[in-house]
């Protein structure tokens, strides 16, 4: 079925860095992944590992001085890196949409939510404001906002956090994009609301056939959503595979350690283990494996040479010397 189709989004050997006076600081190094139609790929990792930067690169919305250093991002086979601003504007919100972490601040305080959901439709679908507003009300209903006609007339400050995130999803999906990028969409929400939003995204994905690039640091959330998982550490993908591969048989010691920090309902522990140390900043990344200083299995080679990604099965790969032995 869907797996036979060519991937919607293909990222190959992508490196992203910042230009500064003292040269180029590369933050994301040589990552590759592909997103299949109607599936969800989760990028997982600690803060500062380059997840959000990768997401922004998909939209070519890197922060000032940020730059794609090498590699390619292809949407339906069309290269996005280096595409002119005007062509990119036609893609953003139309073929690739993004929902942000903070639903509190991502809505414009001086417009009603109806107007804001209508905006991408006016920009991309040549709709008149009144047509777009009608469609916006339908979208608000689709994302489960009760009484959408009167809610459309509300300002963001009148809505709760969960409601606002629903509005953000409505905005992102208004033009029925091929790809939805969700950057920690539930981090700012209560646990109960979190579950509702995840269910909603799941339902809408089935309804619209959207592919989702899901970015999170939380394996609990990821396990609910993902078909495929790519685990990132210090700017690299260190393990990649189907959700089952990564969650059930994690191979990289970092993945294992990260999974152990996630509370589980089926295993009771007194105290959740923490990973000692912290993610090295891009400037202080070691020569060898970036995880070596925090890894309990590290040997001499780990700190001198960077491990290459090893294909374990058709779907599963990991970048660790330990994996090769096992």
């Amino acid at each position, binding site marked *: 079925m869907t797996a036979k189709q060519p991937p919607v989004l293909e990222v190959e050997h992508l490196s992203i860095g910042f230009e500064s006076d003292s040269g180029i600081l590369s933050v994301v190094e040589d990552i590759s992944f592909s997103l299949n139609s109607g599936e969800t790929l989760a990028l997982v990792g600690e803060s500062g590992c380059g997840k959000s930067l990768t997401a922004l690169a998909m939209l070519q919305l890197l922060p000032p001085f940020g730059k794609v250093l090498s590699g390619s991002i292809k949407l339906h086979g069309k290269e996005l890196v280096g595409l002119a601003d005007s062509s990119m504007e036609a893609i953003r919100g139309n073929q690739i949409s*993004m929902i942000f972490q903070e639903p509190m601040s991502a809505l414009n305080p001086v417009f009603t939510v109806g107007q804001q959901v209508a905006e991408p439709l006016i920009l991309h679908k040549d709709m008149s404001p009144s047509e777009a507003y009608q469609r916006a009300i339908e979208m608000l209903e689709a994302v489960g906002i009760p009484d959408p006609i009167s809610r459309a007339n509300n300002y963001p400050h009148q809505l709760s956090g969960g409601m606002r995130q629903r509005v953000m999803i409505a905005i992102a999906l208004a033009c029925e994009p091929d790809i939805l990028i969700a950057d920690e969409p539930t981090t700012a929400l209560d646990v109960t609301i979190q579950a509702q939003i995840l269910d909603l995204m799941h339902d809408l994905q089935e309804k619209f056939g959207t592919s989702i690039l899901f970015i999170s640091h939380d394996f609990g959330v990821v396990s609910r959503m993902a078909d495929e998982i790519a685990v990132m550490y210090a700017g690299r993908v260190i393990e990649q595979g189907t959700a089952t591969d990564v969650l059930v048989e994690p191979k990289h010691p970092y993945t294992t350690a990260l999974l152990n920090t996630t509370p589980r309902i089926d295993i009771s522990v007194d105290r959740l283990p923490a990973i000692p140390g912290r993610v090295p900043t891009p400037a202080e990344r070691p020569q060898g494996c970036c995880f070596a200083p925090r890894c309990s299995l590290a040997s001499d080679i780990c700190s001198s040479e960077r491990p290459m990604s090893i294909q374990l099965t058709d779907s599963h790969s990991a970048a660790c010397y330990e994996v090769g032995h096992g």
Partner: protein
Amino acid sequence: MINQNSPLFLAMRRFRRHRLAIFSACVLLSMIVLVMIAPLFEILLGVSANQVDLYSRMAGSSLAHPLGTDELGRDVFLRLLYGGRISLFTGLTAACFAASIGTVIGLCAGYFGGRLDALLMRLTDSVIALPLLPLLIVLAAIDLNKLGLPEAIVQSEDVSFYRIVLIVALTGWTTVARLVRGATLSLKEREFVMAAQGIGASDRHIMFRHILPNLLSPIIVAVTLSVGSVILLESVLSFLGLGIQPPMASWGNMLTNAQQLIWEAPLLAVYPGLLIFITVISFNFLGDGLQDAFDPKAEH
């Protein structure tokens, strides 16, 4: 349809509690209505504002001339109304015009940053650094005939009015430009700007459709506060004989005429002076009130 929860509506509700500002708004409003219906008074009194009557020079109050007449026997009340037309209209147009220039310059500087910002802000600094009064005098003294403007414009009665508006706008945009730039710098870092980029909005769309509406309240306050100072500036220029040219009346040039007769007919100076004072102070109170209404968190 007025949305009861729109930020503007909420601000207006807070504004209603500000008594002094409401009072000032009423004063200004009635003043505007009075100057608008000035022709009606002309009919009622049976004289026109520029009509000279040398037989009744510097007359006191009477039924025919409620506030007396000036040194040429013109009706002071009517001239005050027509002068008010000019002064208020100059103040409002010039303030709005200046604010528009300032808004565009401030938005571009703040949003694009970098070299454009540096360039525009140095330009702003230079305009601020120019000594205002000598500059105004020079600008006001430019001979329009020599600029090659069409005869119809140069000869028209309103040319001194356009000149004042232009001069004030060209020198008065700096405050708004700085204000808007500062606010834009902070607004563009807000996540909704990134979200707007995420739905494919162009820079121009983001500047004018997303950032500008968020700046409306400080701009409105700045315009209101500047109307008063523009009216003062017009008075100064007219007082120096460089502003609105007689026979057209403005409060400023009425003051000029009155100064020669300050001992014989002091009231001729008091009336326009008082009106300038009331108008300027009302605009200031109104501006303060709007500021409080738009920014309820600011403490005084």
